């Protein structure tokens, strides 16, 4: 999909990568020189559970086209169960997005272990493609009436 200004639409992806698995997997993708689209900006979190819904929503409502959360495979969480929490939260967030009118596909959770550089590259490639087909985050183009700066609440 192309945007109005004639440039090819390049989705903006924010990543929350768990330090132990997915961040390491992304490192491995680098070490292995596996090429993938340059659309993701990663934030390293100690555990995928650290991808707080508030952060995710902040990004999505701020116009980021997709949020990627990468965690350890079930049973491999460095903290035992953080990824299970993540999975539950992501399920809730997807519902929330759907209700608000944001495509739930804009939020993606993947399990990527430290040895799965190829999987990481593949996941980003795939997610980028998916987001390209979805088009830009509508919130990016929606103009909201300017907020009124009011009196500060005491």
């Amino acid at each position, binding site marked *: 999909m192309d945007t109005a200004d004639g440039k090819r639409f390049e989705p903006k992806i924010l990543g929350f990568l768990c330090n132990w698995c997915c961040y390491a997997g992304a490192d491995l993708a680098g070490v292995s020189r596996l090429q993938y689209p340059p659309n993701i900006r990663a934030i390293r979190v100690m555990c995928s559970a650290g991808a707080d*819904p*508030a952060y995710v*929503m*902040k990004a999505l*409502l701020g116009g980021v086209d997709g949020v990627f959360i990468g965690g350890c*495979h*079930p*049973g491999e969480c460095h903290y035992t*169960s953080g990824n*299970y*929490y993540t*999975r*539950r*939260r*992501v*399920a*809730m*967030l997807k*519902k*929330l997005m*759907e*209700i*608000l*009118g*944001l*495509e739930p596909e804009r939020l*993606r*959770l*993947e*399990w990527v272990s430290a040895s799965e550089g190829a999987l990481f590259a593949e996941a980003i490639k795939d997610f980028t493609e998916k987001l390209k087909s979805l088009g830009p985050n*509508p*919130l990016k183009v*929606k103009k*909201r*009436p300017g*907020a*009124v*700066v*009011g*009196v*500060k*609440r005491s």
Partner: protein
Amino acid sequence: MAKCAEVVQDILRGMLRERLVDEVVAFGRGLTGSDILPLFITDEQDIDRIVTTSYCPSSLAKLVARYGDRNKKMAIVVRSCDARGLVEIAKRRQVKPENLYLVGIECYGVVREKRGEVYIFADKMEVDGEMMPLDEAALSPNCRRCEYPVPTMADISCRIEPEGDCLVTVNTEKGKAMLATASVPVQDAPPSDVAAIKERAARWQEKDFGDIKRMEPGERLDYWLSQFDRCIKCYGCRDACPICVCKECCLEPDRGLIKGGEYPPETLFHAVRLTHVGESCVNCGQCEAACPMEIPVSKLYHMLSKEVGSIFNYEPGLDIDSLPPVSMVDEEDLLKTGVDFG
């Protein structure tokens, strides 16, 4: 309807008298006699101010959590949404369930506006003693969607019959003890037939949620943005919400999440509320009732909680032992391998 109130009052009075509880919390008439207010009663004499009308403006759950002394034993007159709210905040350790004695009143809805003394029944309503067909439009939207008229989570539940009789069901051991203090004999009621209410709830849920769901995603987004655009960040929804029990809310301007001093607030304001109550909304409707800008927030939260509940097989407020589903994991999680829950 006096008979009903009398039975309830009688039980409460007995409990207070027998020192089974230190305090009674219920809606009742204010000192002027016309307003219906939440009351914290420690004096037996005040018991007769208690009413069981279907117009009760705020959530007792929230009040108990905020103003009650959690170490005191309290009898609380609750509708099911109040009771469910209390169950949810009990999970969040804001009340001690062992100190709560819940006197449930079967509730088929409250009216949006006060029109004298109103009693709602499954299929009819009584306004100032006059029985008439139920005008669903008069009901609060959340009540129309409510599928829990019977407060089964309370220790006892009282059913008000159109004829004014009050039938009591004992739900717990604690309930038995509570009834033992009553001076009038109370008979055990046959179970209520809630099929009609479930049908009504389904119909209204389908309508309220369906209206939204049927929109194209973009349309839906526009709809909500236009709703949120009216927000004046009065925090009314939050303040009224029984689930919002934080000492210091993270949506306050100095907490870094939401910029201070501007309205409408960024959409994140609503999103964060959603993520916080989405797993536990008991559809009490307090938020929407509190909203001066008539943003249909209750519909939003209820809708999300139904969706979330359907994933995790979780119904807020019914079972005190099951934790909010997004703040816990259980054995079954360990067996699932995919990235999607389910």
